Protein backbone atom coordinates (compact mmCIF):
# COMPACT_ATOMS: atom_id res chain seq x y z
CA UNK A 1 0.00 0.00 0.00
CA UNK A 2 1.18 3.47 -0.91
CA UNK A 3 -0.13 6.01 1.60
CA UNK A 4 1.40 9.10 0.01
CA UNK A 5 0.65 10.52 -3.39
CA UNK A 6 1.65 13.65 -5.26
CA UNK A 7 -1.25 13.32 -7.69
CA UNK A 8 -5.00 13.95 -7.31
CA UNK A 9 -6.61 11.33 -5.08
CA UNK A 10 -8.38 8.59 -7.04
CA UNK A 11 -11.53 7.92 -5.03
CA UNK A 12 -12.70 5.07 -7.24
CA UNK A 13 -9.36 3.26 -6.83
CA UNK A 14 -9.63 3.53 -3.03
CA UNK A 15 -13.19 2.20 -3.06
CA UNK A 16 -12.06 -0.71 -5.23
CA UNK A 17 -9.32 -1.58 -2.74
CA UNK A 18 -11.81 -2.19 0.07
CA UNK A 19 -14.62 -3.65 -2.05
CA UNK A 20 -15.70 -7.08 -0.81
CA UNK A 21 -19.14 -8.67 -1.27
CA UNK A 22 -19.17 -9.64 2.43
CA UNK A 23 -18.85 -5.98 3.47
CA UNK A 24 -22.19 -4.21 3.14
CA UNK A 25 -21.22 -0.81 4.53
CA UNK A 26 -18.56 1.54 3.21
CA UNK A 27 -17.77 4.92 4.76
CA UNK A 28 -15.42 7.39 3.15
CA UNK A 29 -13.98 10.69 4.30
CA UNK A 30 -12.36 13.32 2.12
CA UNK A 31 -10.58 16.29 3.65
CA UNK A 32 -10.30 19.07 1.10
CA UNK A 33 -8.47 22.36 0.90
CA UNK A 34 -10.82 25.12 2.01
CA UNK A 35 -10.98 28.51 0.38
CA UNK A 36 -10.38 30.01 3.83
CA UNK A 37 -12.48 32.27 5.96
CA UNK A 38 -9.90 33.89 8.24
CA UNK A 39 -6.94 35.22 6.31
CA UNK A 40 -8.49 35.75 2.91
CA UNK A 41 -8.85 33.57 -0.15
CA UNK A 42 -6.61 30.50 -0.17
CA UNK A 43 -5.59 29.39 -3.66
CA UNK A 44 -3.84 26.19 -2.64
CA UNK A 45 -1.99 24.47 0.17
CA UNK A 46 1.57 23.27 -0.21
CA UNK A 47 1.77 20.10 1.90
CA UNK A 48 5.17 18.88 3.00
CA UNK A 49 5.81 15.66 4.90
CA UNK A 50 8.35 13.43 6.55
CA UNK A 51 7.54 10.89 3.89
CA UNK A 52 9.12 7.73 5.29
CA UNK A 53 7.37 8.31 8.60
CA UNK A 54 4.09 9.24 6.92
CA UNK A 55 4.07 5.85 5.18
CA UNK A 56 4.98 3.98 8.36
CA UNK A 57 2.59 5.87 10.61
CA UNK A 58 -0.38 5.65 8.25
CA UNK A 59 0.20 1.89 7.91
CA UNK A 60 0.26 1.61 11.70
CA UNK A 61 -2.96 3.63 12.09
CA UNK A 62 -4.74 1.43 9.54
CA UNK A 63 -3.50 -1.75 11.28
CA UNK A 64 -4.78 -0.45 14.61
CA UNK A 65 -8.20 0.34 13.12
CA UNK A 66 -8.50 -3.13 11.62
CA UNK A 67 -7.49 -4.63 14.98
CA UNK A 68 -10.25 -2.64 16.70
CA UNK A 69 -12.90 -3.45 14.10
CA UNK A 70 -12.02 -6.96 12.93
CA UNK A 71 -13.49 -7.76 9.57
CA UNK A 72 -13.19 -4.15 8.43
CA UNK A 73 -11.00 -3.14 5.52
CA UNK A 74 -9.41 0.29 5.72
CA UNK A 75 -7.32 2.30 3.27
CA UNK A 76 -6.07 5.87 3.22
CA UNK A 77 -4.05 8.34 1.22
CA UNK A 78 -2.48 11.69 1.94
CA UNK A 79 -1.68 13.90 -1.01
CA UNK A 80 1.38 16.13 -0.67
CA UNK A 81 2.81 18.95 -2.74
CA UNK A 82 0.57 21.74 -3.99
CA UNK A 83 -3.13 20.91 -3.64
CA UNK A 84 -5.52 23.49 -5.14
CA UNK A 85 -8.53 24.77 -3.21
CA UNK A 86 -11.48 22.35 -3.35
CA UNK A 87 -9.37 19.25 -4.00
CA UNK A 88 -8.95 16.53 -1.37
CA UNK A 89 -5.65 16.14 0.49
CA UNK A 90 -6.71 13.28 2.77
CA UNK A 91 -8.91 10.29 2.00
CA UNK A 92 -9.89 7.40 4.26
CA UNK A 93 -12.21 4.56 3.25
CA UNK A 94 -13.48 1.85 5.61
CA UNK A 95 -15.66 -1.08 4.59
CA UNK A 96 -17.27 -3.38 7.14
CA UNK A 97 -20.04 -5.96 7.30
CA UNK A 98 -22.41 -3.30 8.71
CA UNK A 99 -22.57 0.46 8.57
CA UNK A 100 -21.93 1.21 12.25
CA UNK A 101 -18.47 -0.36 12.11
CA UNK A 102 -17.74 1.26 8.75
CA UNK A 103 -18.52 4.74 10.11
CA UNK A 104 -16.64 4.13 13.37
CA UNK A 105 -13.53 2.72 11.70
CA UNK A 106 -13.47 5.54 9.13
CA UNK A 107 -13.90 8.27 11.74
CA UNK A 108 -11.31 6.78 14.07
CA UNK A 109 -8.77 6.44 11.27
CA UNK A 110 -9.31 10.06 10.22
CA UNK A 111 -8.86 11.36 13.77
CA UNK A 112 -5.67 9.36 14.26
CA UNK A 113 -4.35 10.48 10.87
CA UNK A 114 -4.98 14.13 11.73
CA UNK A 115 -3.17 13.75 15.06
CA UNK A 116 -0.27 11.54 14.06
CA UNK A 117 0.73 12.00 10.42
CA UNK A 118 3.89 14.08 9.99
CA UNK A 119 2.50 16.56 7.49
CA UNK A 120 2.68 20.35 7.43
CA UNK A 121 0.83 22.87 5.40
CA UNK A 122 1.64 26.24 3.97
CA UNK A 123 -1.32 28.20 2.70
CA UNK A 124 -0.83 30.01 -0.59
CA UNK A 125 -3.02 33.09 -0.89
CA UNK A 126 -4.41 34.77 -3.97
CA UNK A 127 -1.93 37.63 -3.57
CA UNK A 128 0.99 35.21 -3.69
CA UNK A 129 1.83 35.38 0.01
CA UNK A 130 2.25 32.19 2.02
CA UNK A 131 1.76 31.19 5.64
CA UNK A 132 2.33 28.05 7.69
CA UNK A 133 -0.94 26.85 9.13
CA UNK A 134 -1.40 24.61 12.16
CA UNK A 135 -4.33 22.23 12.39
CA UNK A 136 -7.35 22.98 14.47
CA UNK A 137 -7.77 20.98 17.63
CA UNK A 138 -9.18 17.44 17.32
CA UNK A 139 -12.89 17.65 16.70
CA UNK A 140 -15.54 16.04 18.83
CA UNK A 141 -18.89 14.86 17.56
CA UNK A 142 -20.97 17.64 16.07
CA UNK A 143 -24.11 18.58 17.92
CA UNK A 144 -27.02 19.54 15.70
CA UNK A 145 -28.27 23.07 16.24
CA UNK A 146 -31.72 21.83 17.22
CA UNK A 147 -32.61 18.75 19.21
Amino acid at each position, binding site marked *: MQYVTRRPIDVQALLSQVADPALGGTAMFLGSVRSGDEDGPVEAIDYSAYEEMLE*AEFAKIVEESVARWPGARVVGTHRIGIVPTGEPSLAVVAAAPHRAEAFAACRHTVEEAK*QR*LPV*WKKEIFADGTEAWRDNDQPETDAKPTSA
Partner: protein
Amino acid sequence: MHFREALSSSTTVTVTVRAFARYAEILGIEATTLQLPSPATVGDAVKLLRESTPNGHLLPDRPLVAVNSEHAFADSPLREGDELALMPPLAGG
Protein backbone atom coordinates in the same frame (compact mmCIF):
# COMPACT_ATOMS: atom_id res chain seq x y z
CA MET B 1 27.54 20.49 9.09
CA HIS B 2 28.74 18.59 12.19
CA PHE B 3 28.58 19.54 15.86
CA ARG B 4 31.14 17.59 17.81
CA GLU B 5 31.96 17.54 21.46
CA ALA B 6 35.45 16.69 22.70
CA LEU B 7 34.78 13.05 23.51
CA SER B 8 36.25 9.81 22.30
CA SER B 9 34.03 7.91 19.83
CA SER B 10 33.49 5.01 22.22
CA THR B 11 31.61 7.27 24.63
CA THR B 12 29.60 9.20 22.05
CA VAL B 13 26.61 8.52 19.81
CA THR B 14 26.24 10.07 16.40
CA VAL B 15 22.71 10.67 15.13
CA THR B 16 21.18 12.20 12.05
CA VAL B 17 18.90 15.15 12.72
CA ARG B 18 16.17 16.14 10.28
CA ALA B 19 14.16 19.31 10.56
CA PHE B 20 10.81 19.88 8.85
CA ALA B 21 8.69 22.80 7.70
CA ARG B 22 9.05 25.84 10.01
CA TYR B 23 11.92 24.20 11.92
CA ALA B 24 13.91 23.67 8.73
CA GLU B 25 13.44 27.39 8.06
CA ILE B 26 14.56 28.31 11.59
CA LEU B 27 17.69 26.18 11.46
CA GLY B 28 18.39 26.93 7.80
CA ILE B 29 18.98 23.20 7.18
CA GLU B 30 16.91 20.10 6.54
CA ALA B 31 19.43 17.58 7.88
CA THR B 32 22.65 17.43 9.86
CA THR B 33 24.56 15.02 12.10
CA LEU B 34 25.07 15.48 15.80
CA GLN B 35 27.55 13.82 18.15
CA LEU B 36 26.43 13.49 21.76
CA PRO B 37 27.95 12.12 24.98
CA SER B 38 26.68 8.60 25.64
CA PRO B 39 24.13 7.77 26.95
CA ALA B 40 22.05 10.39 25.12
CA THR B 41 18.39 11.27 24.99
CA VAL B 42 16.24 13.28 22.60
CA GLY B 43 16.28 16.06 25.19
CA ASP B 44 20.09 16.19 25.13
CA ALA B 45 20.08 16.53 21.35
CA VAL B 46 17.51 19.32 21.39
CA LYS B 47 19.45 21.17 24.11
CA LEU B 48 22.66 20.98 22.06
CA LEU B 49 20.88 22.18 18.93
CA ARG B 50 19.27 25.07 20.77
CA GLU B 51 22.60 26.17 22.25
CA SER B 52 24.98 25.59 19.37
CA THR B 53 23.17 26.39 16.12
CA PRO B 54 22.29 29.82 14.72
CA ASN B 55 18.66 30.58 15.63
CA GLY B 56 18.58 27.29 17.58
CA HIS B 57 17.07 29.19 20.53
CA LEU B 58 13.97 29.72 18.39
CA LEU B 59 13.16 26.00 18.66
CA PRO B 60 10.86 25.09 21.53
CA ASP B 61 12.37 23.38 24.60
CA ARG B 62 10.34 20.28 23.85
CA PRO B 63 9.46 20.09 20.21
CA LEU B 64 7.45 17.24 18.76
CA VAL B 65 10.00 14.56 17.79
CA ALA B 66 10.32 11.19 16.12
CA VAL B 67 13.15 8.70 16.32
CA ASN B 68 13.54 6.41 13.31
CA SER B 69 10.08 7.42 12.01
CA GLU B 70 8.25 6.75 15.28
CA HIS B 71 6.82 9.37 17.59
CA ALA B 72 9.17 9.82 20.58
CA PHE B 73 9.64 11.97 23.69
CA ALA B 74 12.26 14.14 25.40
CA ASP B 75 13.47 11.21 27.50
CA SER B 76 13.59 8.72 24.61
CA PRO B 77 17.13 7.30 24.26
CA LEU B 78 19.24 7.98 21.17
CA ARG B 79 21.51 5.25 19.85
CA GLU B 80 24.31 5.29 17.29
CA GLY B 81 22.88 5.91 13.81
CA ASP B 82 19.39 6.92 14.94
CA GLU B 83 17.44 9.47 12.90
CA LEU B 84 15.93 12.21 15.05
CA ALA B 85 13.17 14.30 13.45
CA LEU B 86 12.22 17.74 14.76
CA MET B 87 8.60 18.35 13.84
CA PRO B 88 6.45 21.48 14.15
CA PRO B 89 2.83 20.92 15.27
CA LEU B 90 1.31 18.45 12.81
CA ALA B 91 -1.12 19.77 10.23
CA GLY B 92 -2.11 16.84 8.07
CA GLY B 93 -5.48 16.30 6.46
